[in-house]
């Protein structure tokens, strides 16, 4: 969660929806009315939410590129070092530095580094780890409910207005929840 809030307790106003379109429309309305969307909880990836919530594109690709490149360079140099410098052996008359023959292994290592590092970066960035205390606000999220979460930030939060907008946009249920972080 990108919000940096040192408060120990977070209060949320939740709007539950049973339809993707209505929920996306509600997000747009709320944002237009000046509310910051804390997050939206959905059973599947809703593409149009990226735009509606104003999320930036993920930069995981950069991680992949750097990790892959590292793997490529490491494996090429390692193969060169072992086969040419450290302990060369004449096998089948192939030249010690058979760069062409080093390509398959280098390719695999590139992919391996890229994939594993990206996954690790994803876990770290999304703070997913075993036994994490989940912010599961409602088990129906993993079934068929879409939940818009608005954090009640002290002072500036107009609860009445938010409540009204959620109802007007077709929320099937509205709830409040406090989470200790």
């Amino acid at each position, binding site marked *: 969660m990108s919000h940096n809030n040192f408060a120990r307790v977070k209060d949320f106003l939740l709007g539950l929806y049973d339809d993707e379109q209505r929920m996306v429309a509600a997000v747009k309305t709320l944002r237009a009315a000046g509310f910051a969307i804390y997050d939206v909880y959905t059973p599947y990836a809703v593409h149009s939410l990226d735009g509606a919530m104003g999320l930036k594109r993920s930069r995981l690709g950069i991680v992949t590129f750097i990790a892959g490149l590292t793997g490529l360079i490491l494996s090429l140099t390692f193969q060169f070092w072992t086969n040419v410098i450290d*302990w060369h*052996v*004449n*096998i089948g008359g192939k030249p010690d530095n058979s760069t062409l023959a080093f390509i398959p292994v280098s390719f695999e290592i590139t992919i391996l580094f890229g994939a594993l590092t990206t996954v690790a970066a994803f876990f770290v960035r999304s703070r997913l780890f075993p036994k994490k205390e989940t912010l599961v606000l409602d088990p129906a999220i993993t079934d068929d409910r879409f939940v818009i979460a608005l954090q009640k930030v002290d002072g500036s939060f107009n609860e009445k207005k938010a409540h009204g907008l959620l109802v007007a946009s077709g929320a099937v249920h509205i709830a409040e929840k406090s989470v200790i972080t």
Partner: protein
Amino acid sequence: MAKKLFIVAMSLSVLGYLGYQLVGAARNVGVNQGYEPDQPIAYSHKIHAGDNQIPCLYCHTGADKGRHAGIPSANICMNCHVKIKTESPEIKKIKEALEQNKPIEWVKVHRLPDFAYFNHSQHVNSGVICQDCHGPIQTMTRVRQENPLTMGWCINCHRAKGIATPPEHPDVSRDLSKDTKPIGGLDCAKCHY
């Protein structure tokens, strides 16, 4: 937070230590350097080869003729020991073995890696002396494996000694050596076939 960090650091170091141990164990599979087993008879190379200067080939008769150097048979011992130190309890063991026609169960010390062909005579006849591989055997009361006897150890010696070029194929080898005898090689098939 500090507690979490501590746990992470601890588990990482335990993992690191285990990994180090594991690689160490993996490295040394099949390596018996320093192996010095008890033998059925307390035979001393120091007394025979060192103090009394008996040539190696006097007992190990196969070393310059065949693949194996050979453990001397009991009658070779008795060539001398019918006269010398006949009352020693160790010599009595030999006598006993001879009388009962039972082989002495020597414990093999030097084992080469599996799937490698090694021939003593090739080496002995190329001027490799026994101590090159077996270490200062003439000083050992009990035989100890001095060298690792790994492939790397073999090859490094072959590299150091160089490859003699067969006169009929002057382009075969990379290194030239003054010795005209073919004393080595670096192909896999030299030992593995």
